[in-house]
């Protein structure tokens, strides 16, 4: 038996009952009908399932018919019990704030899900921005031979008590600071 025929037999076996119940698409229906015409064993299975379906259609609706189910007295009894519980006032008008439609609920859920995915990513972007080093300020170019200017660096702000120069205090001179080179920043010219 070729693989195609075996595949059709499997398809037929899986969907024969649905075919008999009229629940298949037109394409699936024609596939099964074609195969049942060609395959003896599937034809036999089709006849068995057809007989079973017909028997069930005939007998299942009669279940309960012989035990007094569905008599007028039974329904009257049930209705009396139900009638007491029925709401007597009109149902409250559904406020638009609370009556969410099916589609709106799912749309909101999708939006929350997307925000939850995007939030960590945007936080990562922000973190990268903060970690970039601050570019250095352009350095001062001094020609050779020119004494380096004395730059008083104000270490403290004017409000700091230590910032107030005490009489006689000498401003530190970069030129005389230990370890300072006197060649300045210019390049040596040969």
């Amino acid at each position, binding site marked *: 038996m070729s693989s195609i025929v075996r595949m059709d037999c499997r398809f037929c076996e*899986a*969907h*024969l*009952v*649905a075919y008999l*119940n009229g*629940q298949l698409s037109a394409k699936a229906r024609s596939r099964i009908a074609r195969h049942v015409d060609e395959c003896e064993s599937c034809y036999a299975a089709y006849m*068995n*399932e057809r*007989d*079973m*379906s017909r*028997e*069930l*259609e005939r*007998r*299942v*609706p*009669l*279940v*309960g*018919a*012989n*035990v*007094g*189910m*569905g008599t007028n007295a*039974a*329904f009257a*009894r*049930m*209705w009396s*019990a*139900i*009638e007491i*519980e*029925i*709401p*007597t*006032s*009109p*149902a*409250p008008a*559904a406020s638009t704030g609370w009556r969410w*439609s*099916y589609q709106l609920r799912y749309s909101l859920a999708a939006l929350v899900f997307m925000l939850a995915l995007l939030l960590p990513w945007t936080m990562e972007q922000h973190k990268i921005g903060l970690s970039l080093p601050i570019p250095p300020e352009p350095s001062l170019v001094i020609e050779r031979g020119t004494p380096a200017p004395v730059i008083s660096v104000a270490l403290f702000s004017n409000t700091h008590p230590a910032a107030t120069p005490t009489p006689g205090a000498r401003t530190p001179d970069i030129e005389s600071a230990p370890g300072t080179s006197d060649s300045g920043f210019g390049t040596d010219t040969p």
Partner: protein
Amino acid sequence: MTITTLTITAEQTQERVTAAIGRCLRGDQSGYESLFAEFAPGICRLCYSLLFNTQDAEDVTQESFVYAFKNLERYDAERASFKTWLYTIAVSRCRNVYRRKHPMIDLLNLFQHDDIPAPKSETPEAAFAHQSAQEAIEQAIVALSPRLREAVVLRYGHGLTYREIAEVMDCPQKTAESRVRLAHEALRGLLQPTGQGLLDELLSV
């Protein structure tokens, strides 16, 4: 009855149901009575087919309608038909009964054949065979697992489509399809314990 006639009948029923629901929501008691009259026979038969106990079937039918009427404003016509919604409530309540106790077969009534309607032209022998066949099917349905029983009762007892069965049973449509197929296999096994003989006899009635 032609397909066109059936379609018109289904549309008329739907219009009647929609109008009745509208009356209920406005506080008109006659709406509830219309809905009960329309769906109570089907719900009652469904519950008995699943529980095989008269008292349980009536209790579940009652509870299902009370729940449906108290929660009518939550019914969404865009999601499902009223029938499917009501059937979902009833099946859910039947499952609560399974969990509480195994389905009790109303044995005495199950074997009382007198009231099963038979065609007047039937001979006594044929009538007896008809009742035996009905009894055999009912015993086989009782022996099915709850899910397979639900699938076969909804399909053959109430004519629901596979999509509607899936909604009522709260499962995918493919699962509903395979449950109906598995129910066929199980029933065949139950109805022919020794070869082909019993099934042939049953199908020849």
